[in-house]
């Protein structure tokens, strides 16, 4: 940018200008205030006063004001952040020039929280949120949450500050917070990044970033906003040339139509087709399209739960008898499966770590539709083990479903239809008694102390079953009871997991989801582990400060329980006699943290520790009343490990 006027040069020039012209020009560009009244103090000529007595002022629209114009044009509703000096210009522009609306500044107490909120927000709102992180240190804090979102193929707009010009950096601190290549920290876990050197470049990079991150396979993007670019005024000759590109009609990449026709042929030829879904549903239309295919071919669906793919009580949902279902299959249609190899193979956690094939039909045909191969990086191994497929169709699975439905309709004969309809009826019968069986199972743990996960889950269900609820948190540490016993009927009830299993996802991601649910008028209930909660307890302050309604239930097993099991397994394999030491380093006890007090300290209604299952209903009712009033609440429930 040859015409760029450096901040300090430009401001030095202002200092020599008449004060009256400074006063006349120092106005906000967006909401121009009325002309200032004449001062009763006569202006003092600049030449008559020492330079240090008259700090220079910024005149007119600044670079970061224009950056806010871009955020508004992209319809970014929220930007979560902890304040940092490398983006102070943009921060100020958001709250004053932009009037703190679209985006609204959401204050967090950790950058990991800011990024994880973006993750959860997108999965509910289906549109990206932004986070703004301090140069170097803030980005490093945010990196685990960015990795979770990357592994979960969820977009977020990460804005990082940076003071790119060494000559304008203040001594010491600004050097520590600047980088030659700010994005290097997260380049392996973002889809794209840029460090634009001009405002026009910034506009184009922001729109390109938005386009890339919201096109499957989706992932976070990082744009670095240079400090001088933010803080400098925009010279008039540059301002009139600035242009923000518009995103118009766009589509998602679907599978090749010829390959999809071949898939339809294979499915219609199968005797026992099965559909496996995992990171499949990209929109709320996804479940309906999936069911249409499943009903047409009479196939049971096994779901990996990384998205809300299918209602848990639909009779074609065979996820709770997944192995029996997959063993019968002679053709599997795998939709965004994430781990295709793991569908038919496993590595049991034994000393020798054997590679064991699962029991499958020897003539099994495997059709894979997904975006997994469309964005693979070299370093982090989230791409999983390579797997053979009989037919591999790169493309977004949900975008491909209409093509598959059309191909099935075209190819399906009357005889095919009769066969598929007959099979569909039989497949549905297999799940008829499932709910009853799960109710019998949960009865075994009904009165257990510490409180069992089954009891906790059903007490919560009793409170929400007549509400328009949404549960954004993972369920594997609750023995998946919600998927067994609740009625997960709407396409927005759940949103899958973290992606990379980076602990500390659930608590802040749930708040991001709650922020989106607040706009939709839905009730958010989040069950988080104590280990997860302790990674980001400051989330509660953000919830209270911004009045984001959410019920947090801490599933408090007073441990990193997964690791309790892991260390026990290690010790037993190695025949360590001194068993008492196996809890060293895995328990969160002695003293037991009081999560209700912590929550109260952050300004929330909270109760606990709750140790008797009979006390759950009353506590939940009281907390739910608070949440329905539009505020967050927390219950600390001392629970069984799983």
């Amino acid at each position: 940018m040859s015409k760029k006027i450096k901040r300090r040069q430009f401001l030095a020039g202002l200092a020599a200008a008449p004060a009256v012209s400074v006063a006349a020009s120092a106005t906000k560009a967006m909401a121009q205030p009325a002309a200032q009244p004449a001062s009763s103090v006569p202006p003092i000529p600049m030449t008559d006063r020492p330079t240090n007595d008259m700090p220079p002022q910024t005149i007119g629209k600044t670079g970061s004001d224009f950056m806010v114009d871009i955020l508004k044009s992209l319809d970014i509703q929220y930007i979560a952040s902890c304040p940092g000096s490398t983006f102070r210009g943009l921060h100020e522009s958001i709250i004053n020039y932009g009037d703190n609306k679209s985006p609204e500044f959401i204050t967090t107490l950790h950058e990991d929280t800011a990024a994880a909120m973006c993750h959860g927000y997108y999965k509910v709102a289906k549109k990206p949120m932004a986070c703004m992180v301090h140069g170097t240190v803030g980005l490093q804090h945010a990196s685990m949450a960015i990795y979770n979102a990357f592994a979960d193929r969820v977009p977020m707009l990460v804005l990082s500050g940076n003071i790119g010009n060494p000559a304008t950096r203040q001594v010491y601190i600004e050097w520590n917070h600047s980088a030659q290549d700010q994005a290097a920290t997260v380049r392996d876990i973002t889809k794209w990044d840029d460090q634009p050197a001009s405002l026009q470049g910034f506009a184009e990079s922001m729109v390109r970033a938005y386009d890339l991150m919201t096109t499957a396979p989706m992932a976070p993007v990082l744009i670095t906003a240079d400090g001088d670019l933010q803080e400098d005024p925009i010279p008039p000759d540059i301002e009139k040339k600035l242009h923000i590109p518009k995103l118009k009609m766009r589509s998602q990449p679907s599978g090749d139509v010829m390959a999809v026709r071949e898939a339809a042929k294979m499915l219609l030829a199968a005797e026992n087709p099965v559909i496996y879904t995992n990171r499949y549903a990209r929109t709320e239309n996804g479940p309906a399209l999936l069911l249409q295919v499943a009903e047409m071919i009479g196939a049971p669906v096994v779901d990996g739960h990384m998205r809300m793919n299918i209602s848990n009580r639909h009779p074609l949902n065979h996820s709770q008898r997944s192995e029996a279902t997959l063993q019968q299959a002679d053709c599997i249609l795998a939709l965004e499966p994430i781990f295709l190899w793991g569908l038919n193979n496993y590595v049991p956690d034994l000393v020798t770590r054997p590679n064991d094939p699962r029991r499958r039909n020897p003539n099994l045909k495997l059709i894979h539709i997904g975006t997994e191969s469309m964005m693979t990086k070299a370093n982090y191994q989230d791409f999983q083990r390579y797997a053979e497929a009989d037919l591999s169709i790169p493309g977004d699975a949900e975008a491909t479903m209409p093509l598959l439905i059309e191909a099935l309709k075209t190819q399906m004969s009357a005889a095919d239809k009769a066969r598929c309809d007959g099979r569909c009826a039989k497949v549905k019968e297999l799940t008829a008694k499932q709910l009853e069986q799960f109710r019998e199972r949960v009865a075994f743990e009904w009165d257990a102390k510490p409180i069992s996960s089954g009891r906790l889950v059903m007490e919560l269900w009793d409170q929400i079953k007549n509400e328009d609820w949404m549960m954004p948190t993972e369920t594997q540490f609750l023995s998946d009871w919600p998927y067994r016993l609740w009625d997960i009927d709407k396409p927005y009830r759940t949103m899958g997991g973290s992606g990379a299993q980076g602990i500390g996802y659930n608590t802040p991601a749930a708040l991001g989801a709650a922020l989106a649910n607040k706009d939709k008028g839905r009730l958010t209930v989040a069950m988080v582990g104590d280990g997860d909660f302790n990674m980001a307890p400051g989330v509660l302050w953000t919830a209270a400060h911004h009045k984001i309604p959410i019920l947090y239930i801490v599933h408090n097993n007073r441990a990193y329980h997964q690791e309790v099991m892991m260390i026990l397994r290690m010790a037993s394999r190695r025949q360590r006699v001194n068993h008492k030491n196996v809890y060293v380093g895995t328990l969160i006890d002695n003293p037991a943290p009081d999560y209700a007090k912590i929550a109260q300290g952050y300004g929330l209604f909270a109760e606990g520790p709750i140790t008797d299952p009979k006390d759950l209903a009353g506590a939940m009712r009281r907390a739910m009343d608070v949440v329905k009033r539009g505020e967050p609440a927390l219950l600390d429930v001392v629970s069984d490990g799983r």
Partner: protein
Amino acid sequence: MKINLLLGAALVLFSAAAFAQDSLKGNAQTGKDLFVAKGCYSCHGFVGQGSREGPRLMPALPYPAFVAQLRTPRTIMPPYTATLVNDQQAADIHAYLESQPKPPDPKSIKLLQ
């Protein structure tokens, strides 16, 4: 079917252990403490109700089958040899599992209707 065969084989193979229990009276209260101290609860739940990580242990298996699974487990459960859980301790843990009351009828639980 396969599980039944395995359990049957275990009954034969570990009849010696069964005889051992005849001479070892298990103590349910001690067994409860051991169930936690030895980490059984971590996968099977505090009352042996089972979880995603480990199967339900109630109603309790016959003692020989219980010991067979303890010493030479199927699946990924690590082996608990006599070095880690001696015969008396095994009998105590088994006594704890046997002492567990029958679960309530789910039809009697309002929240399960």
